[in-house]
């Protein structure tokens, strides 16, 4: 793992999330992920840099996005999950579903 390596993924789509993600955000979050998947990118990067909160309902939307991606052959990756958002994704096994 110390030898440097480089992977370039062209034509990715980035979904940049900011704010609190709970049941109120679920439908819009799902819509954003599905829109990104539908644009048929090489992969979807879900960027949580601006996300301060994430609950099980919002994770439901995330998993729906992941499922849609699997059907379309589009991998989804989670980046920049920090603090409580990272713990929630990790403890629930969702991080592994995405980046595993």
């Amino acid at each position: 793992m110390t030898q440097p390596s480089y992977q370039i993924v062209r034509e990715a789509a980035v979904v940049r999330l900011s704010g609190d993600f709970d049941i109120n955000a679920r439908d819009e979050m799902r819509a954003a992920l599905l829109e990104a998947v539908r644009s048929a990118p090489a992969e979807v990067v879900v960027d949580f840099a601006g996300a301060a909160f994430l609950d099980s309902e919002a994770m439901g939307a995330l998993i729906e996005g992941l499922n849609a991606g699997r059907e379309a052959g589009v991998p989804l990756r989670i980046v920049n999950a920090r603090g409580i958002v990272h713990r929630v994704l990790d403890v629930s096994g969702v991080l592994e579903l995405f980046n595993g």
Partner: protein
Amino acid sequence: MPFLSAQSPPAMTPQHEWVLDSPVQLRSLRASLHEAITGQPLPAGAELDEIPEKVVLVATELATNALRHGLPPTIVRLGRHDNVFVLDVADHSPDVVPRYADDRPPGAGGLGLHLAKQFALDLGWYIEDDTKHVWAEFPVPS
């Protein structure tokens, strides 16, 4: 683990109470809960910062369940008993009980109580008259 144990309530005097009728109130519940906890006389420290976040997450999970699966109003209470924070979320559907989802496919929900279980010290529920209470305990770091 399909069922949460139906345990007797932890002794506590509620110090804060919030009444919710709609999920849009969850956001202000979180802000207000966070303030209530960090406003307590607590020792400083890194580990401590995780407690308010855990309480806020579990409160969101339990209140969402009460709003979705129970009847309004949803009443959220926070109290403290010795070195333990007690969170109690009440709804008015004593006939439907919380249970851990066991075999749902990913995306079909059922993560909430599992998450709450992981973030709380202890989790349980009980019925009192026409009210169902789901409660969670958290350590107050010393």
